[in-house]
């Protein structure tokens, strides 16, 4: 029987926090006993989603530069939700952001982008556990 996870981190939207995010994803891969290649894809995708928040979501003078990362299992997949309270990650706003979103799409089984809105932007990244 596969284990279940439900974890959440709230971190400063700061480059120094990206390592913690990668550690969290690796821990989830270990808990779920996933092959290294699948865990690597999750690490790359979630790191990139958070890197987009760090680089593009907030104006420099924003008073509360934070990002939320939640990971949970549901049915036959693990889902990562990366959200912020900042301005939009818009395709074309920055070449880096656009390439990053395409990378996440390529690594995951499904990517949903919600926002921007009053609650910021939310990326929901799905990985099938039956790859």
């Amino acid at each position, binding site marked *: 029987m596969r284990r279940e996870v439900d974890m959440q981190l709230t971190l400063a939207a700061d*480059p*120094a926090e*990206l*390592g*913690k995010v*990668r*550690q969290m994803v690796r821990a989830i891969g270990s808990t779920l006993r996933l092959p*290294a*290649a699948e865990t*690597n*894809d999750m*690490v*790359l995708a979630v*790191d*990139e989603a958070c*890197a987009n928040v*760090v*680089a593009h979501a907030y104006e420099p003078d924003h008073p509360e530069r934070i990002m939320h990362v939640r990971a949970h299992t549901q049915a036959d997949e693990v889902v990562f939700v990366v959200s912020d309270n900042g301005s939009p990650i818009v395709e074309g706003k920055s070449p*880096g952001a656009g*390439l*990053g979103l395409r*990378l996440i799409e*390529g*690594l995951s089984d499904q990517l949903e982008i919600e926002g921007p809105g009053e609650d910021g932007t939310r990326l929901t990244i799905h990985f099938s556990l039956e790859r």
Partner: protein
Amino acid sequence: MDDTYGQLVVQAGGPVGVVSLRGEHDHVSRSQLEGIVETLLDDVSTRAVIIDLTDTDFVNLPVVGALARATERANGRDKHFIVVLPEAGRSIVRRLFELIEADTVLRVVPSMEDALAAAGGGAGA
């Protein structure tokens, strides 16, 4: 949590400068990497800069972007800029390089021997 960030190990002073990225590298070390590479490229005695990813556990897009920009600067100065990524190297780094087709903008070779051979055969040799 453990500190997973990496080290930049630089071998300079000759015609070929080598920067080895050990551990994990992202936004945090990118600016330091850019500064080191720029210093090496500014040195008139430098013929080539080699970036060694043999012991690299992780890089993300901003780091690859920095390497791509350094490649352009090296090309503009008629110098070599070569990335070493062994075929048996860290799979997560290779996975990123394959997905973004990094070899279309970077000169990637599988070994330091190949890099040194390439560095000796062109500009400034």
